[in-house]
């Protein structure tokens, strides 16, 4: 589904990714872990097409086609979704209206019929239950005045509504208490399926207790320095990231 080949990217003058390669098949859940500043968020943002990130080398194929020359909205239309580390507040645009606009834009992109207001309301009410979002929050401006946990739940709600095929979660667990973490995890797990893949970017192993990954990759200094199964996350939790740095230096 997604093939990242020797991806290099910079922000301003600073080179962040020094050659990342990764292959993700449908149905798989990949966790990307690593210390602060290792390039995790950069990877997620480059994949989603955020401005300000310059790809300086390598390529990314999505369904066998070049992903990087496409607009963010086209990527979303083709089933890519980024759950933001810091979801943006948009006062004046209601959550419901925004989601209806987004879903219909994606359906249009996929040559599927658009949903009318009544059908859409059924969808959003149904999905909101999954992440414990009350109807009052749906009527409010997008993320306007939401707490940190509410914003992250709202990201999962959007993901559930838009039904992407490739979900990128950028530190969705950061700043969540245990209850909110479980709600978010429940939302993610409900979406797991044979045709959908996940890239879960996280600093801590905590989320992975609830969302079991198939693969764990450690990103450090803009490179993937180690890959393994879910046990690798536990090992990282125990030993921290330091030993990988030493191992890397030792191998030189």
């Amino acid at each position, binding site marked *: 589904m997604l093939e990242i080949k020797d991806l290099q990217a910079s922000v301003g003058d600073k080179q962040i990714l020094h050659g990342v390669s990764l292959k993700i098949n449908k149905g798989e859940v990949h966790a990307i872990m690593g210390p602060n500043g290792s390039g995790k968020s950069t990877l997620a943002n480059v994949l989603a*097409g955020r*401005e300000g990130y310059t790809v300086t080398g390598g390529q990314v194929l999505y369904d066998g086609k070049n992903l990087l020359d496409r607009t963010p909205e086209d990527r979303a239309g083709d089933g890519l979704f980024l759950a933001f580390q810091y*979801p943006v507040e948009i006062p004046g645009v209601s959550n419901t209206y*925004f*989601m209806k606009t987004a879903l219909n834009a994606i359906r249009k992109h996929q040559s599927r019929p658009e949903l009318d207001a009544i059908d859409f309301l059924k969808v959003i009410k149904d999905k909101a239950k999954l992440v414990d979002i009350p109807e009052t929050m749906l009527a409010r401006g997008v993320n306007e005045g939401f707490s940190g946990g509410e914003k992250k739940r709202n990201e999962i709600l959007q993901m559930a509504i838009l039904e992407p095929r490739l979900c990128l979660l950028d530190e969705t667990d950061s700043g969540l208490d245990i209850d909110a973490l479980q709600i978010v995890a429940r939302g993610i797990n409900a979406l797991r399926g044979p045709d959908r893949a996940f890239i879960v970017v996280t600093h801590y192993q905590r989320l992975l207790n609830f969302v079991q990954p198939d693969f764990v990759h450690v990103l450090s200094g803009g490179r993937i320095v180690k890959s393994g199964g879910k046990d690798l996350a536990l090992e990282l939790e125990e030993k921290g990231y330091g030993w990988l740095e030493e191992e890397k230096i030792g191998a030189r």
Partner: protein
Amino acid sequence: MNIGGASSPQAVRGNPASGAAASGFHLEARNRDGSVVQLKAEPVEGGRRVTIPPGCQATLIEKNESLRPEPYTTQSKWEIVLAEGAKLNHYKLVHEGPQATHHSFIEADVQKSASFQSHVFLFEGAQIRNTIHVRLTGEDAECLLEGLYVGSGSRVIENHTLVDHQKPRGTSRELYKGILDGQSRGLFDGLVIVQKEAQKTDSAQTNKNLLLSTEAKAFSNPELKIFAHDVKCRHGSTIGQIDAAQLFYMRSRGVPQAEARRLLIYAFASEMIEQVEIPALRDILFPCLNLATYTKK
């Protein structure tokens, strides 16, 4: 003209502006018990004069509207007196032709415990000048001045407002928002004066501008002159552009760039229209906003 659903036979209709056939006004008033009050909009030089009697609640809806393509000039002038405890909601919509010049002058004398509320929507016209002078001449008087102005092409829009607090415990609130595209110019020039006698005045004045092009310009000049010592006054202004983070957030959800921009412009302006208490008027204003902010890119 029939807007606002307020079509009682006692309402006054007229044509205060010279030279624009589709323009006109609608004025009606009621006592607190709901009974209809007959109001007179007397002609004065260049416009009309109306007095809202004590305790009376009035609505004045004014449209300055034309599709004429050639250059022409219209003007409208209102001299309004609000007697003790009276309230007036004034809605003004300017939707003139593409080469039109429109001058509007509103002068309000707000007496004891009276309330003057002005909502101005400046959508179309080559040159628009909106001048509002409000004098709070009685104790506990209040005023609300709201304005939304939309500029594109080479349109020039000027707003000059004056709120003169003359007596104690007056309240004034002012919010003007500008959306400027193309090479348009938008000016907000707002002065609040708090006279020596006007202790316990509570005043807030805000001007916000959204620039949609690099060549559009906003000029913002909020000004306070305070001669009393026990007052609460604040003012501020902002000039900004479409927020890149909000735009990316929307696009990452599949919303095409042009539509995301439109939504964000709409979000900036919509609160001004949502506050309009007359549903039928909102139904006119929202399409005007859509039309006025639709960028041909």
